[in-house]
């Protein structure tokens, strides 16, 4: 357990101190959302209608951009080989790294989303649901992304292959997350969407570390 905590804090400190990785991801998130009012026009009704979807898509892309640093630097400098040899099971190591990745990207994204939600004209209740959906859904993004990041270690044109693998897998959280806000707009209530989204995150929490660890073992073989 000490090894788990050590790895978690090491990754978190690296992410927060190393050249503002978190800041860059947040900056990309904000810029991607701000582009849309220029593209579709500043009409408040239209922005309100598509706002939650825009913010969720921007969050997916931001998470995607940050995935390559999940294992890549450890793979390059040989730290991954040491992790594979250590007594900490590789599945738990993946879990620690995903938790640190979520703290450094998913959580800031969710916390920044209320500001962006005001820009796209969502009202107070919808802002709460959007933030809740991001808080519940972003762990799944980190976990699912870890599988693809582990699979593409050492690949040619890693970034492109990574996006091709990850984006189809990100469709279910996107549908549920943006659907939650839309359901509360139309009066159906967001509860069911948020519950299924939570189930998705929990399933990812249970399954993805196994797949990532299997992929990592092949990468360091």
């Amino acid at each position: 357990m000490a090894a788990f905590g050590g790895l978690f804090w090491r990754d978190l400190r690296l992410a927060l101190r190393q050249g503002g990785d978190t800041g860059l991801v947040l900056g990309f998130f904000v810029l991607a959302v701000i582009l849309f009012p220029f593209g579709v026009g500043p009409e408040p009704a239209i922005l309100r209608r598509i706002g939650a979807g825009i913010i969720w898509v921007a969050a997916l892309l931001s998470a995607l951009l940050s995935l390559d640093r999940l294992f890549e630097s450890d793979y390059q400098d040989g730290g991954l080989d040491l992790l594979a040899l250590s007594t900490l099971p590789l599945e738990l190591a993946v879990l620690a790294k995903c938790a640190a990745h979520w703290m450094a990207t998913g959580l800031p994204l969710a916390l920044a989303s209320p500001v962006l939600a005001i820009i796209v004209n969502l009202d107070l209740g919808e802002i709460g649901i959007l933030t809740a959906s991001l808080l519940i859904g972003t762990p799944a993004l980190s976990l699912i992304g870890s599988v693809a990041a582990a699979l593409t270690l050492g690949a040619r044109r890693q970034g492109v292959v990574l996006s091709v693998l990850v984006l189809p897998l990100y469709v279910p959280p996107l549908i549920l997350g943006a659907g939650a806000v839309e359901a509360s707009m139309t009066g159906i209530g967001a509860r069911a969407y948020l519950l299924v989204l939570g189930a998705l995150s929990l399933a990812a929490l249970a399954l993805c570390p196994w797949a990532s660890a299997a992929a990592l073992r092949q990468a360091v073989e």
Partner: protein
Amino acid sequence: MINWLANPARFGRFSARTLPWFGWGAAAVLAVGLYWSLVVAPADYQQGDTVRIMYIHVPAAWMALSVYFFIAVASAVALVWRHPFAEIAARAAAPIGAAFTLICLATGSLWGRPMWGAWWVWDARLTSVLILFFFYLGYIALVNAFDDPSRGGRAGSVLALVGIVNLPIIKFSVDWWNTLHQPASVVRIGGPSIALAMLVPLLIMAAGFCLFFVALLMLRMRTVLNERKAMALRVSAGTAALQTEPEPMPSMKTAAR
């Protein structure tokens, strides 16, 4: 049978003998099936002649799912028993499966235009099949992304197993959500709800698609095996030449001058 065939030399002999049978068999069955479904089979009382798109669309959809399942099983075998032959089979099947999925999507789109009034609707069945298509593309991209082909094969195997979560979603999408796409009408509890006059040509077409898949798969696997053999021959010839003739050949010197 699988164990017996999982030997490249034996597979080579076996496939050389049976490939023409599968190939010509597929052509014959598909010819009969096409004639039956496009000419003999009755038109639908609601959809008219557009229903004939079904005879391509449905077998292609079945094959899209089955080929992915085949890839996943072969990948599991490759991961568990480290058998390189399973990896070759999975890798050879992927582009065929992607093509079947594309045929399924394209014919479905052509069928949707007159029936639903739209080329594409974002319903659960269509979306999940589209995601299956992206899985095929991702698998092909990942397998070919490594300088070391065996590393690509193993990464692809893990991906294929991850992607299998999509198969039940596709199969049951028409039951779980209330969608525009019609529910299952052939494989269902209480027997098929489709008329026998349409079921028979549909099954013939499905058999033709299966034979076609087996023939293509054998052909592609033979190609991969031959490529590896050629590579091995070239490598051994190269090392032999290096060992016997360390100095460059005189003709090359004159050419350089």
